[in-house]
């Protein structure tokens, strides 16, 4: 008997629904507990920054939002690859489910960054490479959602959205390295960089806890959105089957 890989096992939507239904409460609880701990550290333990003062607290939600904005798009690109190359039955479900969640975190990265920029830079917005590339990422998310909703045929919508999803992944290295390639008002990387983080551990710790908590929340929301999408497709299939049955019943009655 052949052994199945985890992705092969999860190709069955019923099995996925059972497994995700078991995991979700635990994942949500752990995410909530870690976020609560991170917020406690952020507001009651972390000291003010020697230059930015208390506004550094905005970093504890801004930076995780920006990381998750990029991770969300990476997830869409990986799912798109899974659909186009491996034709995994849940790849399209995953890509579709991740788009609104990734868009929400991108919007939050933009808004919290803007609210951090005003007191620190003296302006809510500048057209520098980092800010502009994240705005393009937000438009890419909106484009993916709009493209999918404009095509009625589910399979065609999935394939075309997957192509756009894969093409758009080029924005991720541009966002990451924009602060190195161009002269930007946005600060360069201070956590994920060669030589280790340049942030004091008292401020780095709540940031990493916050990032961990919101990453788990992202995955919990992604599972909920995938479960919703599976239900939506079942509902559509059953409704169409019922309509067909009603039509054939009417045709048989007329023939008699």
């Amino acid at each position, binding site marked *: 008997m052949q052994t199945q890989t985890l992705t092969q096992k999860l190709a*069955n*939507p*019923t*099995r996925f629904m059972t497994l995700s239904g078991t995991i979700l409460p635990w994942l949500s609880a752990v995410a909530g507990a870690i976020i609560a701990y991170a917020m406690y550290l952020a*507001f009651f333990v972390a000291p*003010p920054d020697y230059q930015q*003062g*208390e*506004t550094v*607290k*905005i970093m504890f*939600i*801004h930076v995780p*939002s920006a990381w998750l904005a990029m991770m969300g798009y990476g997830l869409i690109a990986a799912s798109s690859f899974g659909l186009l190359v491996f034709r995994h*039955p849940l790849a399209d479900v995953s890509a579709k489910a991740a788009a*609104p*969640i990734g868009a*929400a975190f991108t*919007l*939050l990265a933009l*808004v*919290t960054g803007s*609210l*951090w920029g*005003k*007191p620190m830079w003296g302006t809510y917005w500048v057209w520098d490479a980092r800010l502009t590339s994240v705005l393009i990422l937000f438009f890419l998310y909106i484009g993916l959602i709009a493209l999918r909703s404009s095509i009625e045929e589910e399979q065609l919508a999935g394939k075309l959205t997957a192509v756009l999803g894969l093409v758009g992944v080029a924005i991720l290295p541009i966002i990451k390295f924009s602060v190195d390639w161009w002269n930007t008002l946005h600060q360069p990387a201070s956590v994920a960089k060669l030589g280790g983080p340049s942030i004091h551990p008292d401020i780095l710790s709540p940031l990493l806890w916050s990032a961990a908590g919101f990453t788990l*929340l992202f995955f919990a*929301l992604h599972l*909920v*959105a995938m*479960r*919703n999408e*599976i*239900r*939506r*497709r*079942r*509902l559509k*299939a*059953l*409704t169409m*089957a*019922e309509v067909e049955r009603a039509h054939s019943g009417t045709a048989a009655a007329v023939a008699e």
Partner: protein
Amino acid sequence: MMDLGPHAGFIWASYGIFAFVLAALVAWLLADGHRLQRSLDDLEARGVTRRSKRGAAAGSTGSDGT
């Protein structure tokens, strides 16, 4: 209320908008899930079920029809 200095308004606005957007996202996903599940339950109550469920009811096993 803790003192967050001269820029407290920006800090509270950031956290407020952040909490509101995430709460709206969670509420939308949960409401969507409940609505879809209710519709599926309605169909099932009218006897419209998936092939796998019909197969299981007839004593055989089948793959999911999604």
